[in-house]
Structures are given as C-alpha cells and as structure tokens.
C-alpha cells in the first residue's frame, strides 16, 4: 500500500514537472503545513481513481472503433434491436454503473475523512491573528489581551513553525479570499461576517499568498508574503515589530519625517511613535523590513520605493493611493525616511 502510494506520488510529481524547481513558493503541493499532507494524499487517491476510470473509457472507445465490422447495413440495424436485450451488454451496463457507484462512494468517504482530519487542528491555537482584507491590500493584526503587545502590520505574515495559529478573517469592503497555496486552502472574507482558518506550519520558508476571489480592478495585485520562521526567529521579529518607528537622525530623513507626518501621507497611514496615525491605509511603522511593496506588487528596494511613492497609479492603476506629484526634494526625503523604517 505504502509502495503504491509512493509510486503514485512520484507520478504526480513527474506530471507536475516544473513544480519542484520553483520550491512551492505558491504551489498547492507546497506541503508546508499539517493539512498539506492530507491534501496531497487525497489528491493522489482521486487522481489515481480518475486516471483508471479515464483509461477504461478510452479503452472501451478504441475497442469499439477497432471492432468496426463490415457486415451489411440492414443487418446492423436489425442486430442492434436484438442486442438491446443481450445479457452480456446488460451485464456490462449494470457493472459499469456499479463500478462508478462504488468508486464515488469510496472517494466521498476519503474526502469526508480528509476534511475532518484537516479540521482537527482548529481549537487549540496558540496564536491569534486578525487579517482584514481591503481593496487591494491586507491589514494584519497580531492579537493580544495586552494592548501594548498588539501588533499591526500589513501584507506580510510571520508564523512560528509548528505552532497552531488561528487567523480571523474579515473584510472592509467586498468579498476577498484568503489563500496561501503552500499552507492552506481558501477561505472567503465576506463583509459583515467573520470566518477563520487554522494553520500549523511544518516547514520554515517563505510562501506567497494571493486573493482568490475577484475583488475589482487590482485583484491581480493583492498578494502577501508568509514567512514561516523558527520560534526564536519569530519572537525576535515580533519584539522588533512592537518597537515604535526610529527617530530621524539626518537632516534628509528629518525632512522626510516632517513630510510623512505633516502632509498627505498621515491622512491614511499610521507610523507608530509619530503623529502619523491614519487608519485607512497600510501601517508603515516597519515598512522597510517587509519583502514587498503594495501587497506583493513590487519587491522592496530603494528604486521601487521611489517608483511607488512618486506614481502609485502607474504601477498599480486604480488603487486607492493617489499620485500626489511630490517635488523631487520631497521625494528624496520621503524615500530616505521610509528606508529607515526597518
């Protein structure tokens, strides 16, 4: 049994050729969480059964074609009438129906047990995170009873390996869907409702998640990064993120600080430890520590920060951050300040 399953799994991997080389960054065979194992097993079972059924149909089809007989036309019509009560063909029909029925019952049972097994992780979580979807970015809050330990970030999740995490899902506008193929299946975020998923990551690594329900113009650019760390690394990250933003040290950074906290930026964005406390856009407190800009649209780099701050509407057309036409001096200063938000 194990051997057969192993062979089948190898077959799937062969079939999926390209997957391995991309290290399951966003593949559903990433198998980086507890439920991934159940998923892979179930998928292989279904695939094997379906391939067998398909081969049976094709074999019957080509047998019928190869058998094509040369007898006279009238004969065929006449024989056809008699053959409807032919016991062999009747048995074939009943047998075929029985095979389909039994196969489906087996698959339904397998699916039932996989579903329940995957649901088992829920209920004993050690960490609770609220993810709120917005057009087109993810607001992330690490919940804690202690307000000073409540951590807010955006478009990036850090999870400790081996720890069950409950992710509470909400939406501020339209329906989105939370999906990290390597870690968990989809769960819709529906305005006015609350849902959740529980993840137990099993492999350290970086995974990509993406909104999976069409949510408007920039649905394609509503991604996020999930960073599964060892527990000590996670704690280190967590403590660092709890710190307020560092104070400006150079005149250029000071100018950027003045602009960000005193002008348009602060209307929407929050930078902890500064007067900027807008709540409608992503939190910027540790922006530069993240891997991407604008919900997975661009990799984090100085050049991309320049591009994004100067003209977000040409990079992600239709998103809710306006192009405000910064003077070159202001732009230099703002980017310099943002870069210090490690």
């Amino acid at each position, binding site marked *: 049994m194990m051997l057969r399953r192993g062979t089948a799994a190898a077959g799937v991997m062969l079939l999926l050729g*390209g997957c391995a080389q*991309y290290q399951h*960054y*966003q*593949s*559903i*065979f990433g198998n980086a969480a507890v439920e991934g194992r*159940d*998923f892979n097993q*179930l*998928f292989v079972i*279904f695939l094997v059964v*379906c391939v067998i059924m*398909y081969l049976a*149909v*094709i074999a019957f*089809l080509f*047998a*019928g074609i190869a*058998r*094509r*007989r040369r*007898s006279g036309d009238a004969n*065929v*019509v006449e*024989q*056809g009438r008699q053959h*409807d009560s032919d016991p062999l*063909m009747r048995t*074939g*029909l009943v047998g*075929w129906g029985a095979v*389909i029925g039994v196969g*489906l019952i087996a698959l*339904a049972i*397998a*699916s*039932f047990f996989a*579903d329940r097994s995957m649901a088992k992780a829920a209920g004993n979580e050690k960490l609770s995170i609220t993810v709120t979807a917005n057009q087109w970015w993810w607001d992330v809050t690490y919940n804690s009873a202690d307000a000073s330990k409540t951590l807010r970030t955006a478009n990036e999740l850090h999870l400790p390996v081996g720890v069950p995490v409950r992710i509470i899902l909400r939406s501020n*506008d*339209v*329906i989105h*869907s939370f999906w990290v193929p390597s870690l968990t*299946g*989809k*769960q*819709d975020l529906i*305005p*006015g*409702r609350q849902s959740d998923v529980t993840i137990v990551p099993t492999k350290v690594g970086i995974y*990509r998640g*993406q*909104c*999976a329900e*069409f949510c*408007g*113009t920039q649905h*394609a650019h509503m991604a996020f990064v999930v960073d599964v760390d060892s527990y000590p690394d996670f704690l280190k990250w967590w403590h660092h993120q709890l710190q307020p933003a560092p104070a400006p040290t150079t005149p250029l950074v000071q100018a950027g600080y003045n602009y960000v906290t005193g002008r348009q930026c602060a209307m929407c964005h929050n930078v902890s430890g500064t007067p900027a406390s807008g709540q409608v856009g992503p939190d910027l407190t540790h922006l530069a520590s993240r891997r991407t800009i604008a919900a*997975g649209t661009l990799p984090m780099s100085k050049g991309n920060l320049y591009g994004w701050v100067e003209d977000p509407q040409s990079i992600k057309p*239709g998103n809710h951050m306006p192009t405000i036409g910064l003077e070159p001096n202001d732009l230099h200063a703002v980017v310099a300040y943002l870069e210090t938000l490690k």
Partner: protein
Amino acid sequence: MTERERVEQEDKRLAAEREKIARDGPKLKGAALEARLHAAWRRPPGIMGWLATVDHKEIGRRYIITALIFLALAGVLALLMRLQLARPDSNLISASRYNELFTMHGSTMMFLFAVPVMEGVAVFIIPLMLGTRSTAFPRLNAFSYFMYLFGGLMLWGAFVLNIAPDMGWFAYTPLSGPQFSPGKRADVWAQMITFTEVAALAAAVVLVTTILKTRAPGMTLARMPIFAWAMLVVGIMIIFSMPSVALASSFLISDRLVGTQFYNQAEHGDALLWQHLFWFFGHPEVYIIFLPATGFVSTIVETFCRRSIFAYPVVVLALISTGILAFGLWVHHMFATGLPRVGYSFYTAASMSVSIPTGLQIFCWLATMWDGRPRFQVPMLYVVAFIVTFVIGGLTGVIIAAVPLDLQLHDTYFIVAHFHYVLIGGAVFPLLGILTYWYPKITGRMMSERFGKISFWMVFLGFQLAFFPMHFSGLLGMPRRVYTYPAGLGLELPNMLSTIGAFVVALAVLIYVLNGVVSLYRGAIAPDNPWDSASLEWATSSPPPVYNFEHIPVVEGRAPLWDTEGDIPVISGLRVDEKEMLLTTVVSATPDLREPVPHASLWPFIAACAVGVFFVSSIFSPWAVVFGAIPSAIALTAWFWPKSLERHPEPVIA
C-alpha cells in the same frame, strides 16, 4: 322545427361546409397540394415579411447565426486575454480593460452563445424531428428571438461605448452593488440578464409545448428521439431555474436604482443571498448547455453507427435524473464561503452523484459504437473528440467536488481548465458536429468533408494545447481573473502554451466558418437523407418547404426511416387553405386536435421593441418602469387582440 331537426340541419350544413374546405388526402396531393400549402404557409415578402415571420426554420436559423456571431466576438476577447497572459507582468492590456474582457467573454459565452445556440438548433430541428408543421406559439418564438437579439446588442453596444460590465460574469455582491460599482456597468449586465431570461423562458415554453403536444401520430414518449427528450428536460430546467436569476438580478437592479438593501449587510441584507440565488440558477445552467449536447451525441452516434441507441430507457432516465440532480449542487460553488461542515459533506456527495447518470450515458454511447458499425465522417469525429475531452472535464469535476481539494483548486486556472473541458469538450464539440450533420437539412447543401476534417483536427489539438496546461497553471497557484501574474512562479510555460493553443483553435474555427460559407454556394446538393439517418427531419426535402411536410407522417417505431422500406405512412385531413397543425396527446401521441397556426405578424417585433426600450431605459431611471410599461402593454394588447372567428368550429379529426 323540432330541436332534433334543427340539429340535423345544422350537421348537414357543417358537413357541406367541410366539403368545401380543402384538405390534403387522396384527392389532393403532389404539385397541386404543394402549391396550395405553399400559398397558405408562405410569409409576406420583403423586409416587413422578414420582421413578421413566424416560421420556426427562419427563426431557428437566425438564432444559430446570431449565436455564432457572439461566439466569434467572445472568442476574439479570449484571444486578447491570452495575448495579455502570454508573458508575465505584461502591460499590453490595462487592468480595468482586462476585467471588462473576461466579464464580456463569460457573459457572452454563457448568455448570448451557449444557451441561445442550443435553443436555436432545437427551434429549427425539433418540429421537423417530430413530424409537424410548426412550433407551438410561433409568435412567442419570434418575440423570443428579438428579445435575445436586443439583449445582445445592448451588451455589446455598451462595450463599444465603454460602459461594459467589469465585475465578472457572476457579478458577486457587494462588488457589483451601488457602493463598489458606481456608474452603469453593472446595470447593463443585470438588464442583459433580464433580456436573455425573457428570451430563454419564452423559447423554453415554446419547446416544451411543441415536444409534448405536436408530435407525429404514433410517436409515443417511448419512441421520441433522444434529442427531443434532452430538449424537453432542458426546457423544464429553464422554466425552474431562470426565475431564480431573474429574482437575483431584479434585487440587484433595485439595490442600485431605488436604494433597496437586499444585499447590503449593514442594513440587514446579505451578500451571500446573491450567491445562493445566482448558483441555484447557475449550476442548472451548465446542464442546460450540456444536455442538448448529449442529445446531439446520441443523434450522431445512432446515425453513424447505424444502430439505435443502446438501452434507450437508461439514456432517457439519465437525462431526467441529471436534470433533477442539477438543482441540488449549487453549493459546491460556495465551499470557500465557510458553510457548516455537514453541508459540505452533503453537497460533495450530491455533486459526485451527478456523474452516475452521465457515466451511464457514456457507456450507452460506447456500447452503441461497439455494437454498431461506426463511419468516421466529420460529425462522428466530433463525438470521439467529445468523449476523449469531456470525460477529462467530468473527472476533474469529481476531483473538485471534494471539499478539501476544492478549497485549494477553487477559483484557480484548474477550474478554468475544468469548465472549458466540460463546456467546449462537452457542448461545443458536439455542436460543431451536429451543425455539420444538420447543415444539409438547413441549407440544402453539404459541407466540405476535407475542410471539415482539417478544422476538426486543428480545433481538437489546439483545444488540448490551450486548456490542458491550465490544469498546471492552477496547481502552481494561478488564480482566475488576474490580468497579470509575476515571473518566477513557473507560470510562464503553461501560459505561453495556452496562448498558442488558443490561436490554433481560433484559426480552426475560422476554417470551419469559411467552410460553412463557401459550401452555401459551392457545396454538393444535398439529397433528402444524405447520412442515411433514421429520424423524421430526413423524411422531407433539404431544405424543407415552408410547411415542412406535405402530409403528416405516422410513426410506428423508434427509428421511422429505418423501420420502413420506401414511403413512410402518413395521415391526411389537415386544411391546406389555412395554416393548420395537428396536436396529439401527450403520452401516446394519438391525434387530438387540429390547431390553427398564427400568421406572420409584426406585433411580436413591435412588442420586443417596446419591451426593449423599457428595459434599456430602466437602467437610467426607475420611472422607465412606469412609462415603459405603457407602450409594452399596448403592443401586447394588439398582439393578443381576439380574432373574429370566421370559420365554423369543426369536429375532431377522424
């Protein structure tokens, strides 16, 4: 004069009247009969006659051609999308334009191509197949076509005017609601639904009544061609499912137009209500498209294997049970919304169970081929391609019926692959086959076999190249409806292959269409029954005369033209100076009534115009509902104005 004498006198007078009325029969046949039938049935000439016609063959042809034009338009949109997706991070098409493209592609394919083309084929062929002279309610049939045409023109007019819908063909609230879709785009989409649902409901009523009441004498339900069974089931499914989407889209319009709150969570509405209402229609819709195609397959398999379908009762029961089960599956579109787990298990089982009747049908086709003598002309090739392709789509359907698998595969390109295998492999391949098969009956000429085979192989292989790699794009994590994707996820190769395949398919369809157009003028003249088929549409000339049959045929078995050597038996006694058709009983098809058939009339067209103006203007103002109802009511009143009865009522046919 006693009462008795009075009755006798009246009987005599009626008998004398009847003598004067021209009937077909031994005294009247051949050219003389044809001339009189032609005079009674032909429509007025000219543009007015064109607009007024109630001939099911003309309406069916228009339906088919219009639907094929929409197929071509939606295909062009698909090519544009494939161009954009050929490479990662492509900037060929903007995000908002791309969203319009896939919304228009899906809406056009589902509402303006797939359902109407099936109805169009049925409207053309069903009366011929059943051996009658007209559909039931021919004016309603004409109205249905114009409503469909106007709905399609409105949607595509909006696209040209840059107010095309852009929220996906299933228009989830609240994205399609007043807050997140300002402007008129979503209203255009919702009113297009209203047009097509009126058209589809009208066509369904016409088809169901035609199938139940106008079959040739002797064509009991148990002798009815499988395609007629399929359309009967589909007609009933349309009647049960369309009201659901009618309700859903009316709620949406009133949310948007007059400030109701059906889908607004903040005011105790519910965004999920939309999904339930929409998919309660949307899932049966898939079978409304697929079941006619299974009827095509049964028709082709019978003819080209020269064997009646194996286990006819099983095939019929499979059609009926698929039609019923189709209404119990809609929740499998909503597994990711977070419903109770018991519900999940129920809908998994229900979704899987629908593959039992389909699996049995496939066995019956294969057994028919096994036991018969297949000839591999173009229509039969499409049936083989159908089986090879559709079964893959069916099996991936079983895979995504399992909740744990669906939660990963849902809304990815795996789903895109799945439903294109089911809809193109399961419905478009049989359609291309059946259009080749019925082409001689529709046009009187044969399509070129050579170009038919070339386009067949291109469409088949191109399809596999375009859609098989999408399974892998999905497994590698590519969601649906994204206008671009980043490099480095392994998506480059499958997407490039899909784009190449899409262009091969487009070229193949172009060859198919050119073959159809050239064959109109250059094709070999078709005999009455070029494929040596068994059903009644081949008992009349190709193309059929306007009155379909000189005499109404009588059916004694399941394969009328194979059962009889030479002329098939006929029944006579219908009037020839007036349009008249024979109604038979629902189950046993014994002659029941002679029914006058309406003449050509402009009122269906005028009514469609009035209702069309009403629907379109209600996009812009709720007052249109009040003022638009007035011309609509006038047109409908004129249409239904009682005619003075000039003829004497006549007894039931002997």
